[in-house]
């Protein structure tokens, strides 16, 4: 099975060949590195940009205006915070011209904790991003979705933001990406040999792309129920999604049936799916790893309260990153700051057992 970095790479390759993708760029995105997380190795249209995030976002915007489809990378989302004005401008281009212009462009950036990234390589971007109108925002939790969401971004006529949960980029999927070569250990090895850049000299290396890659698309705006359940709904995305699924499996053994929803798209999101689940379970916890104050999960709680207040049997809850100025490097600090499996289990039990 491909890991998420490989999945993204294959989707970008498919995009170059079939969807008019013409420019993939950012810091260290081109050869020899192909991205600090290898997500752009071996592609045809990659190149290394100057070390200038404002230039990168401006460039992507201009390429969008020019109708040249691009994927621009910000190396870590921690470094996107000097471009919020430009992201707002990209997000308002269609609206402020009253529909005259549209702006096809994709920005991707690794987010979140889980690699001991300390203060400047661990932050998330979902709170700030969901506060910027005009963008569509996706965040996969597995390689197949990563592939399908990237294809969706490359087809969209609007600015799209693809958030890469960095802790999951090297994690292999459970579901096959249509076209990837064989799903056993052999297939994995083969895939690595085909599309992972070799160690050492890479000047002569060319990727061998799997032939059968398809148009497999995960539509923007559609979430997915990854565990069905009756007693509690866990809503999450990105790094914490697999933890929620693990928590559900564990809780099932304890006799609690927990539904887990992978939002996949953060904006505009699949409220139908979420609200139907909450109507059924009447209990919900939103889980993400962003700092918790003015957090996107708080929006989801607001909407839950707005529309489902009288159907709830327990307080809707948020489990998110602690409101600290950074994520400390030392293990006990990162563990105490960011939501872990144990925290999800604890809060889930609490909510399931909550009685007025």
């Amino acid at each position, binding site marked *: 099975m491909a890991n998420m970095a490989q999945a993204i790479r294959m989707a970008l390759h498919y995009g170059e060949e079939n969807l008019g993708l*013409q*420019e993939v760029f950012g810091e260290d995105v081109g050869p020899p590195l192909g991205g600090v997380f290898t997500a752009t190795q071996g592609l045809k249209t990659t190149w290394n*940009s*100057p070390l*200038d995030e*404002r*230039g990168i*976002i*401006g*460039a*992507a*915007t*201009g*390429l*969008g*205006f*020019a*109708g*040249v489809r691009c994927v621009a990378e910000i190396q870590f989302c921690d470094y996107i915070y000097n471009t919020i*004005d*430009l992201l707002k*401008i990209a997000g*308002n*281009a*269609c*609206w*402020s*011209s*009253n*529909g*005259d*212009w*549209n702006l096809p462009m994709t920005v991707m950036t690794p987010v979140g904790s889980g690699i001991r990234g300390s203060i400047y390589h661990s932050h998330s971007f979902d709170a700030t991003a969901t506060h910027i*109108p*005009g963008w*569509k925002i996706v965040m996969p939790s597995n390689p197949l979705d990563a592939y399908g969401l990237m294809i969706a971004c490359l087809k969209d*006529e*609007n600015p799209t933001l693809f958030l890469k949960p960095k802790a999951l980029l090297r994690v292999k999927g459970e579901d096959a990406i249509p076209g990837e070569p064989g799903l056993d250990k052999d297939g994995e090895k083969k895939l690595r040999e085909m599309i992972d850049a070799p160690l050492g000299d890479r000047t002569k290396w060319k990727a061998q792309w799997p032939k059968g890659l398809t148009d497999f698309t995960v539509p923007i705006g559609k979430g997915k129920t990854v565990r069905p359940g009756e007693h509690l709904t866990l809503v999450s995305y990105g790094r914490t999604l697999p933890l929620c699924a693990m928590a559900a499996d564990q809780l099932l053994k304890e006799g609690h049936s927990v539904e887990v929803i992978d939002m996949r798209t953060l*904006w*505009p*999101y699949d*409220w139908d799916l979420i609200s139907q689940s909450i109507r059924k379970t009447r209990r919900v916890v939103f889980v993400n790893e962003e700092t918790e104050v003015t957090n996107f999960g708080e929006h989801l709680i607001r909407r839950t309260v707005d529309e489902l207040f009288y159907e709830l049997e327990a307080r809707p809850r948020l489990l998110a990153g602690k409101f600290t100025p950074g994520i400390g490097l030392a293990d006990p600090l990162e563990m105490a700051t960011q939501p872990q499996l144990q925290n999800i289990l604890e809060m889930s039990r609490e909510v399931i057992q909550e009685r007025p």
Partner: protein
Amino acid sequence: MKKTSETKLDPKLLIKIHDLMVRGRKLEERLIRMYKQNDGYFWIGGPGEEAFNVPLGLQVSKGTGLDHDYLHLHYRSSAILLAMGIEPLDAFRQMKNTATDPFSGGRNFSNHFSVRKWNVPPITSTIETQYAVAIGTGLAQRKSRRPNCKGITLVNGGDAGTAEGEFASSLVWASRPNEELPILLIVTNNEWGISTAANTQHGERSIADRGKAFGIKTAVVNGNDVEEAWEAIRQAMEYVRTERKPFLMEARVSRLYGHSSASGANRVEGEADCLALFETKLEKAGVLSRKEMDSIHDKYEVEMREKAAQAKTEPMPDPGSIYDFTYYKQRGKYF
């Protein structure tokens, strides 16, 4: 009429430029009048930049797509767009923020144009961000990717704004070895940023000098002189268009009505008026007589009065439309 020693350009062209300069000036003055008569909330514009902006607009390769020029403009660019062919009525509509405003549907300030068919993305009020965005259309047109591309990218902005990082970004990105971008970077230097005098902020001898370290060709131009401006723009455009490399041009211009309506939008003493200067020259050279020019003034005075009056009769946007076009072709609340 013949080319005289006083003038270098073809008299026909001079007459055309003069016509557009007068029309542009009248347009701005009418916008100011509308603001003062409470027919708009805010005015900002470009009276005083016509001698530079009209020659620029006339020399643009106008059209849609990569083989035409992209223009990333700021809020003093009305004369460029007028020279390209926008309708003054539409500018009044935007000032009056009517639903019929074709640039923003009553959403944006006056002189914040957007003309997709001519490669003009929405003008943003945010100083200097257009220099970052211009990188992108420049990339789209660069030689290393599109060797036969005919279009170039133009971007303009003020002097004070060059202190923002995006100005430096545009120099860095435009001059990468073997990846040079075909961008004409323009700075219109009026020696002010709102109330702040340039000489209190700029250690540079000239702003154009900042291009030199990057090996970018530069020029400082008297933007109050039509013929100098025409020729400088012509040469710079030709260089960018054929060499596919960047050019940084600083144009010295006047700010005839102050910064914006926030500072009163009254005529400022002591600033050179490029239109008056040009008319003196035209008269002296025998290209146009005072009387001929007066009648042009009168004609456009009437045009602007009538068109502004028309704009005032048009409907306001519908409050139900606030979500429209958050995304392409989308209407109504979508979430």
